[in-house]
């Protein structure tokens, strides 16, 4: 029989897990050129909610955890086809020349639209994991140190219990259909910014009419064959590889970044007092298992 047994009910385990989940964060930014356009993003992500289930096969399963893009700044740059309105005379001079003329104007070239997509979500549809106890030896610990030296220098060894995922599935980024209007408005603004301030409104209207519906212009220029929402979801999730990055980050985080439970080894059971050193107990053979009811941690006291 193990010297030490600690058990946490499913309810207690859920609370432990919440702490791990709430501390997850992921940030990433990237820029890429996709031929007719280039794009960049800067994202920060956290996790929220979900259903946790303990299984009798020594695993836990997590479903429907929201991946919330707390920040998602997206920038899209594309080449607007160039064309010119040549100069012409608006009010001719009856004797000679032109009293009021239109000097002519060319537009075209690169335009960029900034979109704030913060609040988009994805989901961890399924995460299956087992518990993995690990023994962490602080790399800053000097070879000649005793355990007490290590503690007093802030470099104690630790027993850590991680959630070690064997499977992480992340759903495509959920981009709402309203993104169409957001993108159209952003591109329209970007085109507007190309016009010099002296250009009269009627001239702007002529040019915009010439460009045709902006939505069509966007889909033509970007080669979009699906909805804009699907295209953007695919761009971020697959072409930028954000889904894959998220799956890896989530797996790494649970497996090695934030333990479910950790404590110092040797474990201090009596604090330093009156000049006397703390009393510390070596813990050996830590094991962590799970069934549908509870998590069980067992260990021995070292000699």
């Amino acid at each position: 029989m193990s010297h030490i047994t600690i058990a946490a009910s499913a309810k207690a385990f859920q609370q432990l897990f919440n702490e791990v989940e709430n501390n997850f964060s992921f940030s990433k930014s990237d820029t890429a050129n996709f031929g007719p356009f280039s794009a960049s993003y800067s994202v920060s992500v956290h996790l929220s909610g979900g259903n946790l289930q303990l299984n009798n096969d020594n695993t836990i399963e997590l479903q429907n955890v929201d991946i919330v893009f707390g920040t998602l700044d997206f920038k899209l740059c594309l080449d607007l086809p160039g064309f010119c309105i040549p100069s012409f005379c608006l009010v001719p001079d009856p004797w000679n020349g032109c009293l009021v003329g239109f000097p002519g104007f060319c537009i075209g070239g690169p335009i960029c639209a900034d979109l704030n997509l913060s609040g988009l979500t994805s989901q961890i549809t399924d995460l299956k994991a087992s518990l993995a106890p690990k023994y962490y030896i602080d790399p800053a610990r000097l070879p000649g140190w005793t355990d007490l030296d290590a503690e007093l220098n802030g470099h104690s060894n630790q027993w850590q219990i991680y959630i070690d995922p064997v499977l992480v599935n992340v759903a495509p980024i959920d981009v709402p259909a309203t993104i169409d209007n957001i993108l159209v408005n952003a591109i329209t603004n970007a085109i507007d910014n190309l016009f010099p301030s002296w250009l009269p409104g009627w001239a702007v209207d002529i040019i915009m009419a010439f460009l045709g519906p902006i939505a069509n212009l966007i889909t033509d220029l970007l080669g979009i064959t699906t909805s804009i929402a699907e295209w953007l979801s695919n761009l971020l999730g697959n072409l930028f590889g954000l889904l894959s990055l998220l799956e890896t980050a989530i797996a790494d985080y649970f497996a090695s970044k934030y333990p479910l439970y950790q404590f110092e080894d040797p474990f201090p059971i009596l604090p330093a007092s009156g000049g006397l050193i703390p009393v510390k107990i070596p813990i050996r053979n830590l094991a962590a298992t799970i069934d549908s009811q509870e998590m069980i941690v067992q260990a021995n006291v070292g000699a």
Partner: protein
Amino acid sequence: MGYTDNCDLYAAVHEDGINLVAQHVMRQRPSWFNFATQYVSDHLDLACSPVAHTIDVTDYKNPLFKVVSPVPILGADSPPVGLNFCVQLVKAEVDFYPGNIFTLPAVLNPPLPQQHLAMHVQICGGMDCPSEFLNGFLPTPTSPGEATNVQPTQEVVPPTRRLLCFCLDAYLVAHVGVQIVSGKPSLVGIVDSVDVVGIKPKGLSDNVNCYLKTTFELLLKEKLIFPISTMLFDIPLLSLATITAQLTPNPPIPNNPSIDDNQLKIFITLTVAP
């Protein structure tokens, strides 16, 4: 049946583990278990038993002995004379119900009752017998009427070549309760009865038993008291602002803490704030 069928957190420590813990405590806090005069503390070879200790104890200049005053020779006052001695707790082992590690003496009514623990300690001690000192001893002369308003004469402690050592086996029966210490529920041992084997006559035995019972009771209450969170290795749940932890009441848990199956067990219920 699960450990947490009727609670949210469960912790148990087996007597084999507790006995290893006892050894660690004794090796890391030797001055809690070894008492001697300054002379014996300065001449470790005089001790009745070598003091087991970790290297940290000496590296961090912790004492091996708690230094105490010499045993006074009653009536000797010109000069006062004290004798070197030491008392050492050299072995301690715990046996949780049902008793299976050692046999209790008959006076403690074996077998060990339910929900109790037994403890066996071996105490070794010894005192100097300064016969050579007496051969050359000359009392300090005093004048009549000097009994008051004089500086007390410095106590003389004869140098010691060896102590006359002996060892006693003591047994105690105790149970475990919960006491709030610094706002934290903590486990404390409560001594029910003590017997030191082989001491006669009965009056002396009663005195020694009472002295030891008081000693253990105070030691357990003052020094060897452990927050319940220690048994759970400070599991982070207990420090979350949203969670209130309390010992699971009866019903559903009839004894909490419980001593059974050779283990000390605690059961905790959590309340999670919405």
